[in-house]
């Protein structure tokens, strides 16, 4: 391994990063995830932590760009140079740039995440069978609205699982339209457009208006790439047109004829000779995760290695099951040291709780409370809320923030930040509950407290309990493994979060509303889609991941990202 001259490195270990824009090649959540995993490659072996910021200046600013993209090192179109990054330091130092003339994937062809349909956002499964025919890309067959779709299992005819593929008819990226789809035709500078265009831009990105007139409304967004779209050339985003004519020959598939670099291309109209419209054919693409992990190595202070198997070797090679090479580990640990593992905590005795299993259709308490079960969970002598990196559940009950962790909980007054009391045993106040609480909320109308753990939930009314009951009773499907956060809204509704989705629960009807689940990132832009705690505190919504929180204000803007323990709990 090599480090930059003078061993350039960050002078702090809590590194921040910010994603400035997205490639149209992949769904934003896949890009977020690829970058997060790439940072984790390095945080797994060092004391470094990486926190994503949504505004302001971060240590590592991550962006996509084409050709001349604002620094002295232009990219070179498809293939060749994939990305570059600067060593640690102020300003542009530490930043990472990715060439958006590349086809960014997870390394094995188009990575197509679906929306809507009935597959809950699963990835397309290529090839898939539809009406006996095999499809290797999204298709509009079987639909009259021209929306591309795919099956998310190998056989749609058998499994009937499907979702819609990226398309400008479904949504846009960035811009100022909150993801609204394109409206065709639209008017721009007096001209009418029936498709996405790069007109009016110098960066080559395709855009559209999201109302019928950009000239009057100024509303626009960038078009996501369809999986069938060509890359680069002069027809980015258009599909190949087969057959097409080139030098008086007819082509029914992509070809490398006419090029000396062997790259496959196609025309996007029926006659290249007349129209000269072309682009490169979609291929395996480059793994954004692998390239980002390499670039972040530079951003942390590593230069290129001459060990072919090392991540920091300058050439790209796709690896299916990636693991960091010892040369990379030695390099980064030379700069930052190794990761300090937490002190081992002796295994805790397990708790045996016997709770009445009710299967009542009503949630009104019908039984007298059961006596508190005998619990053998001791409170750890060093149980200090400030020592907890990640709580099982955080929620407001009776105006106090309650923080749950491993059979214990703490209370913090919403009036006086930092006034933390506890720990208390969960079993002493709510004896029917298990040690791990995933989510909880208080129904403000009835003062009932709902607790969720795995696929079960309990309802406490004062000392009376009902439960455990299955999540299915609330209308959740069997693939929902747990509820990770709860957000009371007005009119007896509560939003429940799990994975990338959220549901709206009608507390009175005891059922989730129709039209749910919905994607978290569509309604709550800029927060992690894998938050493990979601709660309301002083009118703001908090999304927590590990030690960090993303605070969203009432206008649904992320206005602060920080450490839960310092900013909310006011730990010293």
């Amino acid at each position, binding site marked *: 391994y*090599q480090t*930059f*001259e003078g061993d350039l490195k960050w002078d702090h270990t809590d590194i921040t990063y910010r994603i400035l824009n997205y490639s149209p090649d992949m769904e934003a959540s896949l890009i977020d995830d690829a970058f997060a995993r790439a940072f984790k490659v390095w945080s797994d072996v060092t004391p470094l932590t990486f926190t994503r910021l949504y505004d302001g200046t971060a240590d590592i600013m991550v962006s996509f760009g084409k*050709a001349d993209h604002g620094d002295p*090192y232009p*990219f*070179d*179109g*498809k*293939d*060749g*140079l*994939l*990305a*570059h*990054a600067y060593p640690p330091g102020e300003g542009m130092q530490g930043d990472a740039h990715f060439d958006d*003339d590349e086809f960014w994937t997870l390394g094995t062809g188009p990575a197509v995440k679906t929306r809507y349909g009935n597959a809950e956002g699963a990835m397309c499964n290529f090839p898939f069978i539809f009406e006996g025919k095999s499809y290797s890309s999204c298709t509009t067959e079987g639909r009259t609205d021209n929306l591309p779709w795919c099956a998310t299992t190998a056989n749609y005819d058998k499994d009937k699982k499907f979702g819609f593929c990226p398309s400008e008819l479904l949504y846009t990226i960035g811009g100022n339209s909150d993801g609204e789809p394109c409206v065709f035709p639209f008017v721009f500078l007096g001209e009418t457009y029936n498709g996405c265009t790069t007109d009016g831009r110098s960066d080559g990105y395709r855009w559209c208006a999201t109302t019928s007139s950009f000239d009057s409304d100024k509303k626009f967004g960038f078009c996501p790439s369809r999986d069938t779209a060509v890359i*680069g*050339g*002069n027809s980015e985003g258009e599909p190949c047109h087969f057959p097409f004519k080139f*030098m008086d020959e007819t082509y029914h598939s992509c070809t490398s*004829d*006419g*090029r*000396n*670099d062997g790259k496959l*291309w196609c025309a996007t109209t029926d006659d290249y000779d007349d129209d*000269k419209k*072309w682009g490169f054919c979609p291929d395996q693409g*480059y793994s954004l995760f692998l*390239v980002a992990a*390499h*670039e972040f190595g*530079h951003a942390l202070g590593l*230069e*290129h290695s*001459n060990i*072919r198997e090392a991540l920091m070797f*300058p*050439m*790209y090679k796709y690896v299916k099951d990636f693991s960091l090479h010892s040369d990379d580990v030695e390099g980064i640990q030379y700069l930052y040291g190794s990761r300090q593992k937490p002190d081992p905590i002796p295994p805790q005795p397990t708790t045996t709780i016997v709770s009445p299993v009710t299967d009542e259709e009503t949630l009104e308490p019908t039984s007298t409370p059961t006596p508190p079960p005998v619990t053998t969970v001791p409170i750890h002598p060093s149980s200090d809320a400030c020592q907890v990196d990640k709580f099982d559940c955080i929620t407001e009950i009776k105006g106090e923030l309650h923080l749950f962790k491993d059979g214990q909980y703490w209370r913090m007054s919403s009036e006086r930040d930092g006034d933390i009391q506890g720990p208390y045993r969960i079993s002493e106040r709510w004896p029917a509950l298990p040690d791990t609480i995933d989510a909880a909320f208080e129904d403000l109308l009835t003062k009932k407290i709902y607790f969720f753990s795995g696929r079960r939930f309990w309802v406490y009314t004062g000392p009376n309990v009902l439960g455990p009951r299955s999540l299915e009773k609330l209308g959740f499907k069997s693939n929902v493994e747990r509820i990770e956060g709860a957000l009371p809204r007005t009119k007896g509704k509560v939003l429940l979060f799990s994975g990338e989705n959220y549901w709206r629960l009608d507390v009175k009807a005891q059922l989730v509303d129709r039209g749910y689940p919905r994607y978290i990132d569509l309604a709550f832009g800029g927060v992690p889609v894998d938050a493990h705690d979601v709660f309301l505190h002083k009118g703001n919504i908090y999304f927590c991941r590990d030690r960090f929180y993303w605070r969203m204000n009432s206008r649904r803007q992320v206005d602060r990202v920080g450490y839960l323990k310092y900013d909310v709990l006011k730990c010293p």
Partner: protein
Amino acid sequence: FGRPLKSVFITFPGDIIRNTTDREFADSYLERFGYLSVQKRSGLQSATSTSKALKRLQRNLGLEETGQLDEATIEAMKQPRCGVPDVRN
């Protein structure tokens, strides 16, 4: 079988990569990634310095160190890669 290989190359509109000779491409590559710039700065760029630069590149990439722009070297230079220079200057 039967259709001759097309050897006519055209310039595609909007194609950023220009059709250059292997030698031009190699010189630009060696300079971009730091193998040639030291010699060039001191005004000593010559066949010898290019050969040395090629040897260093070949060593870095695990190729046979011939100092010549052979097929394996030009092939390796055309592989997709990171834009950060290999040789510190």
